[in-house]
Every structure is written in structure tokens, then in C-alpha cells.
């Protein structure tokens, strides 16, 4: 029997697989831009405390609302604080909280979705009804309620955000599981007598993992926007910690004469969201998942 060279693809290690996906992502212009922006933001979040030129909370009445200059690249705000310093620091909290929030969303959303897809029937119906009911509550109202009851600490924000953004993942995970569950290899595993746990772990998860990860990445950018809205409303990060949402909120009244104080955090926030979005899209394409069919919530 002859061996065709096209089939000469050997088993790869996890590291090889991941790096291959990243290379494929970066080979598209949009993916490359997205990845670069995201990596830039992540690096910035790590090093900004060391490179910030000024103290982010140093108030200086004599330097109020200075226009950008060689000394203060992005100008100063209404309390005379350096906008550049505050901008490069302003993504750290948001990035951290939403990253862990997304992990939680992935975990509970993915597991519940797989569970529903697997058991099907009545239980699936009931659980999905409940999820749908939660979906219909405007999340921001619910968040505000939670935050005003429990405070705005990280321990509250991460699980709360994770919970609300996990609902969409439940649906994706459930749909993906439904597709897989009808396949003969699951029937085959059942007929051999494998346990449910073994079926989920060996047969289902490898086949739904990609779809769930892509959805999680997408949720991350949504969550970032949501978290910044909370900050904007004064329910996210508490002053004086620098945060883009908060900075936009503080400086928006000064827009007409001190545009620099607003523009810098806006650029920071939107570039990060766009970066994550492009990355998630490229991620989906690299894994061969068609995202266009999945409705955003």
C-alpha cells in the first residue's frame, strides 16, 4: 500500500499545536493586528508600574488641565494628575478582573452546557429555561444590585461578572455537545460500556473545546466593556485607582476644553476591546469555527 505524502502529518505535542494555532492566527492581517494589540496591552499591564513617569495619585493644583507637552505627554487632568501615567496603568484592573471573570464564565458555562447537552430531555429543558430567564434580565441592573449589596471588591466583581457572562457560553457548549452526541463514536463508546465521565472527558470535551474557547474569548471583550461601564457609573474600581472607565466618566464634562483627558482612556479601552475581538475572530478562523452563525447576546 502506498503512502501519500499529504498524510504525512505526525502527532503533535500540545505546545506544537498551540504555537501552530498562533502562527495561523498571525498569518492573517486582522489576526496579526489583533494579536499585536492584545500582547501590547498585556505587556503594558505588567510593566506599567515600573515605567510610569509620575505618581498616579499625586494631586497638583498648580498643574490642572495642562495640554499635552514634552513633560506631560498626554497632559494633565482636573486634579493635575499626569494623564499618561494614569492611562498606561488604567487597564490593569480591568484586564485582570475580566480575565479571571472569563475563566469562571468558561468553567461554569462550559460544564453546564456539556451536562445539558449530554442528559437532554426534561432536565435540559428546565435548565435552559432558567438560563433563558436570566438572559432576559438586563445584566447591568442585576450587576448594580449585586454590587450595591455586596460592595465592589474584586472577590465580588469576578464571580458576578463570570456568572452573567457565562450564560452565553452555556448555549454554545450545549449546542456543540448536541452536535457531537449524535455521532456514532459516542454510540460506540456507550455500547462498549464506558462510564459517563470517560465519555465526557475523552469523547465530548476534545470535540467541543474549541467552540467553547472561542466563545470565551469573545465574552472576554464583552465583559471588558461591561466592566468599564460599571466603572463609568462608579461601581467598578474605586478612586483613586486609575481605570479607563472611571477616567472617561470623570473627564467627560471637560471634553470641550480638555479633550486629552478623555481621548487617552478612550483609545486605551477601545483598542483593547478591538484587539481582543480581532484575536478571538482569528482564533475562531484558525480553529475552523464559523462564528457568523452564533448570535451575540
Amino acid at each position, binding site marked *: *500500500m*502506498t*503512502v*501519500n*505524502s*499529504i*498524510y504525512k*502529518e*505526525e*502527532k503533535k505535542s500540545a505546545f506544537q499545536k498551540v504555537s501552530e494555532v498562533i502562527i495561523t492566527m498571525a498569518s492573517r492581517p486582522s489576526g496579526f493586528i489583533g494579536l499585536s494589540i492584545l500582547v501590547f496591552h498585556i505587556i503594558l499591564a505588567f510593566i506599567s508600574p515600573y515605567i510610569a513617569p509620575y505618581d498616579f495619585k499625586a494631586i497638583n493644583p498648580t498643574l490642572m488641565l495642562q495640554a499635552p507637552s514634552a513633560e506631560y505627554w498626554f497632559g494633565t487632568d482636573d486634579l493635575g494628575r499626569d494623564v499618561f501615567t494614569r492611562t498606561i496603568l488604567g487597564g490593569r484592573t480591568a484586564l485582570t478582573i475580566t480575565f479571571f471573570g472569563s475563566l469562571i464564565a468558561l468553567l461554569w458555562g462550559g460544564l453546564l452546557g456539556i451536562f445539558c447537552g449530554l442528559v437532554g430531555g426534561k432536565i435540559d429543558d428546565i435548565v435552559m429555561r432558567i438560563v433563558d430567564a436570566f438572559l432576559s434580565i438586563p445584566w447591568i441592573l442585576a450587576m448594580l444590585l449585586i454590587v450595591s449589596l455586596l460592595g465592589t471588591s474584586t472577590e465580588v466583581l469576578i464571580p458576578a461578572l463570570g456568572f452573567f457572562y457565562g450564560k452565553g457560553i452555556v448555549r454554545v457548549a450545549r449546542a456543540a455537545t448536541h452536535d457531537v452526541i449524535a*455521532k*456514532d*463514536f459516542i*454510540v*460506540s*463508546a*456507550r*455500547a*462498549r*460500556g*464506558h462510564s459517563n465521565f470517560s465519555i465526557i472527558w*475523552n*469523547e465530548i470535551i*476534545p*470535540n467541543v473545546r474549541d467552540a467553547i474557547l472561542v466563545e470565551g474569548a469573545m465574552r472576554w471583550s464583552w465583559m471588558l466593556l461591561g466592566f468599564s461601564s460599571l466603572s463609568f457609573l462608579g461601581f467598578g474600581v474605586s478612586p483613586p485607582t486609575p481605570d479607563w472607565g472611571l477616567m472617561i466618566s470623570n473627564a467627560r464634562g471637560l471634553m470641550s476644553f480638555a479633550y486629552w483627558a478623555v481621548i487617552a482612556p478612550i483609545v486605551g479601552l477601545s483598542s483593547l476591546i478591538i484587539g481582543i475581538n480581532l484575536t478571538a475572530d482569528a482564533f475562531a478562523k484558525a480553529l475552523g469555527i464559523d462564528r457568523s452563525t452564533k448570535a451575540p447576546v
Partner: protein
Amino acid sequence: MSDIIQKVKNLSIGFKSKKGEEILILKNISTKIKKGETVGIVGESGSGKSTLALAMMGYVKHGLYTIGGECEFNSSNLLNMKSKDLEKIRGRKIAMIPQNAGQALTPNLKIGYQIDEALQLHSDLSEKEREKKISELLNKVRLPSPETIALRYPHELSGGQQQRVAVAMALAGTPDLLLLDEPTTGLDVTTQAHVLELLNFIAKDTGTSMVYVSHDLGAIAQVSDRIIVMYSGEIVLEGPSRDILKRPIHPYTHGLLKSIPKLSLAGLPESMPGSQPQPGIIQSGCSFFDRCNFSEDKCKNNSPQLEFLKELNTSVRCFNYEKLLKESQVNQNVNKIKNNSKDKEILNLSEVSISYAKQKLLDQIFNRISDDNPTVKDININIKKGETIALVGESGSGKSTILKSIAGLLRTKDGFIRFDENRNLSSDLKERNPNDLRIIQLIFQNPDESLNPNHTVEEIIAQPLKLYFGLKGEELNKNIIDLLQKVRLGEFYMSRYPRQLSGGEKQRVAVARAFAAKPDIILCDEVTSALDVSVQAAVLNLLQQLKEDFGTTYIFVSHDLAVVRAISDRVAVLYQGRLCEVGPSNDVYKFPSHPYTEVLLGAVLEPDPDIKPKLVAEDIVEEKPPEKGCSFQGRCSRILGDICKKDIPPWQLTDSGNAIRCHIPIKELQKEQF
């Protein structure tokens, strides 16, 4: 000149690979379609036949592009035409019936409305005229009572009827050229024969030129005047239908015809080695070189050109066609299968009934199943150790249902399944112990679905070895290599993923996985249906070999009666979940005597222009088995009257051991043959 309707000139179509190489799907194709002619294009999956048919209507699939050449229709090249001009031709002058056309009908629109839409789009008739035309068209495709059909929704029609509607819609624009992509694939044997007969009639009646694309030489043989054989993106043989089927002068076609099982021959045909190369693999030499029985050294580095032989009116792409010219006819050798069955019973199905009916709450609570008219009823089969018993019947006759119950995947309503003369197998998977699960293994129709795409071959075969025997490390490895060798795959396949294997190789892995459990019984559900014809014989031969080595018992389900003929010792014929006839294959095939068996065997399409299907009964599809009497009463052409409608027919035994369930006495049944 004007009698040529479509002219394909030096057409090459391809795509760019990830690495930027140009990969050809069609290589320099030239052919002509004459007015009123029906041409069959055959080839296995990936040979480029659909791409060619689509190009004939000026369509190149997304991701592919035309590298060179043209498709001329009425002297204008369709491939560089503006889409506005193309729209005027498509549907009106050239119509296409895609694969699964029936399923392509819009589900929520009535049939009449959908045909009307096609008429509005492709003709200039007034509303009144259109109305008349609709019933005319439905009449033409021989649908019963067109008025009522027009008011139905697609799901209220059977598969064959849906296909007829698709034909009616294609005829709406009175096209000059009709392209059909696998028009009967996926339909039942009986329906298939009827639809082809209809298409034959329409071709004669309207004078429309037709191009049939199919992998099935049997279907092509029934309809075409001329046949084009494609292999790996090239035309390898083209000529009059009869000559190609009777005296194929290309080694590929020759081998193919040898490897297709025939009804008249019991036993397994010779298999063709290897499989078709992937696009872009072979750069120099003949693309069939690896698999060719007639190859010479020069074939390796020189590509043969398509050569036109005037005296035969045939074109052939082979250096050695003269060798084949000398062979007067395809001599099919079959390896007679040994009947290994012992006297010992291995599995006994007794009074088995299976129901899919949704159970009422009360029944659910008491964990019982109540259904007066279950999907499968009264199945009594006694299976001997080492034999191959086949279940045949149309789609929906309950073949897979019975297999699922044997595997424990579906609870039975009544009856019991007994293993090895003394052990009753629970019909509930959870109540079977691991050994009960091990002794029965399944092989499925489509290896794409039955192998987890994220597991390597090694992981796939390791699963049963770990589960049942707890093997680990070196021993596990040794066993996997051993199994791979048994299914004729090398050790290096271990690290491959299913997507890196060809269809036949995938199915071999599935076979290896089943044998890994050292089962006593293997349930084969349409195991060769998803495979290319040239690979099918190889898998059948492998199954037979393994069975002889291990003494395994097969329960073999297939809709292909010729395949069943080739491999089985005994056959059970099912209609609507009820048994009609059980007996040794030789007898069932030689003296078909149950009226339904006759219908089934009559409808088989053979790749031989001299064997025409005999269409006995109508191809109506019944939704549910009748409540009383004979299950086949609705379609039986020999129905006796009330007795068939009221009483379940008795089992009658023939001298040779055939059991037939019919009210007509055996003598009578055997007498009235063709």
C-alpha cells in the same frame, strides 16, 4: 455542428494550497455533449466529477478557480459570462438537480407554490397557463393525483416523490440540458429503479440532453448512451455505454467492474489494491500507476494521453489498452466464501419487539413499554456460531433498530435475546456486565462519524484494550500494532488522525477497534455503504478473512443486495419491522419467492446494460406497519384479498430450508416466477 449542445475544451480547474501551490481538481478535460444524448460521468469521490458537472453550467465552487479552458454552451463560454447573462441560461436552458434534491425543497412551502415559483422565474407564462403547467409537470413525473400533491408540503412526501418533484421543477424551464448530480444516491433500491426509469422516459419524451453524475456504475448503466470515466481529475475512458461496461479497455474500469459484486455470483469479488491519490500528489506518470495490474516501467514516468480510437469510437488514457482489447470480456473471479457456521447456537432472538413510541407517564413509572403496533415485531432468528447472517430491507424496515437492541442500546418491548444457548442478555445497557458488552461489538456505516476526530488511531484502538483487558504500556502497544497488521495497516498509522486517512483506511481502523475487544459477534451496519466502490471489495475481503481466522459471527446489515449476496451465509428479509423470509442466501437469491423479496431483487441495478430492473410493485412508502394481517399487504401485487389484510401469514418451510411468511402456498410462490 449544431447537434452539439455543450462543448468542454481543455478545462482545468483547481485551487491554491496553503503553501501556495496550484493543485488541479480537473486536468485538461475536453468532451462534447450532443443534443438528446444522455451521458454518464462516473468516478469515485474526489475524482472531480461534480466539479465538471457544475462547470457545465458555468459554476465554479467557492475556493476553486478556472485555470484554463472553456465550457461552451450554444457557442458561448459559460465560464467568463457575466452573472446576469448566466442567470438567463441557468434554470431555463440548463437545469440542475443536485444530490438530495428532495431535501433541498423549502420545507414550509407547498409543492405547487414551489413549482410555480420556478415557472415564474424560468418561463414567461401567465398565471392561468402556469396553473395548467403545474399539473402537467406533476403528471409528467408520474406523481399520483397532481392536484392533491400540489397542496402538500415536502415532508408529506416520500423520498422518491420528493425527487420527482425536484425533477418537475427542473423541467419547469424546458431546459435543453439537464445535469443530475447523484440523482438517486440515498434513495431506496426500489425507489432508485423507479426514478431512473422515469428519467429514461423523460429523456426520450422531451429530447433533453442529460448528464448523470454518479459513483454508481449500476445506476449509470441503466440510463446512459455514453459513459465518461474519471479518475483523479482526468478522463481515463470515454465511449459508448455498452462497450465500456462489457469491454472496458482501461485498467481502472476493468478492475472496477471486476470488483463490484453481482447478484448472479455468490462469493467475494477480487479487490483493487490501494486508493485514489489525493489531488496534487502525483506529478509525473500515470495517475493509476500504483493500483494498476497492467502497468509497465514507462507508466511510472510518462503520462499517457487520451487517445481516440476511431473504430471503437472510444477515447482511452492508457499505454497498454491493447492488452485489454484482447481480453474479450470482464471475467469476474470470485472467492467462494467458506461457510464456517457450526451447529452451536450463539445468539437467539426470540419474539423480539421494539417500540419507539413515546411512553405515557404511567408506563414510564412502572418502567414498561406499551405499544400495540411496535416498529419491530415478532423477530425470531437463531444465529449459529461463525455464520454471517444478513438483514435486508428498505430504509426504515428496522434493520438498524434490531442491531441497536442486540447491542443493548435500545430496550426491547418484548422477547428475549439469548447468548450462547443459556445466557439471557438484558436489553438495558446498564444491566449488562462488561463481559456481555465485550462479546458484541459494532461497526458503523460512516467511519467519519464513528471515529473520534480528535483521537489518533492509537488512541482509538487502545480504548477497548484498556477498557476490557486493562492493558498498559508495552503490551498495549504490541497489541495495537498486532491489530493494525491484521487489518493490513502499517505501524506508522498509529499517530495519524482519522482525517489523515482515506475512507477505506478509516473503516479498517474501525474494524480493528471492533476486533480489539475479541468479540464473539460483530454487528455490521452498512459498513461498506460510505466507501468508494473500488475500496468496498477490499474491506469485504478483509472482513471475511478476519472472520475465518477468529471464528467471529457477523450480523450484517446492508441495503446493497449484491454485497449481501457476496458475503452472507444466510439472509433475513424485513419489511416494516416484520420478517418476510429467512433462509440460506443461495436459496433466497435463486428462488425469490416471497413477493417482497421479488420486489427487492427485481430493483437491483447492475452495471450491465443487458440486465434491466424489473419493477414489480409501486414505490410508495408506508409510514407505519399495518395493524393487522401481512406487513406487505399495502404494496403486494399478489395480494389474495381479505385473508392478507386480516391474518398474519404463517411461516412455510421449503425443502431447502427457506422459511417464507405468506398466505400463498409455497408451490404456488415458486411456480410463478419470471
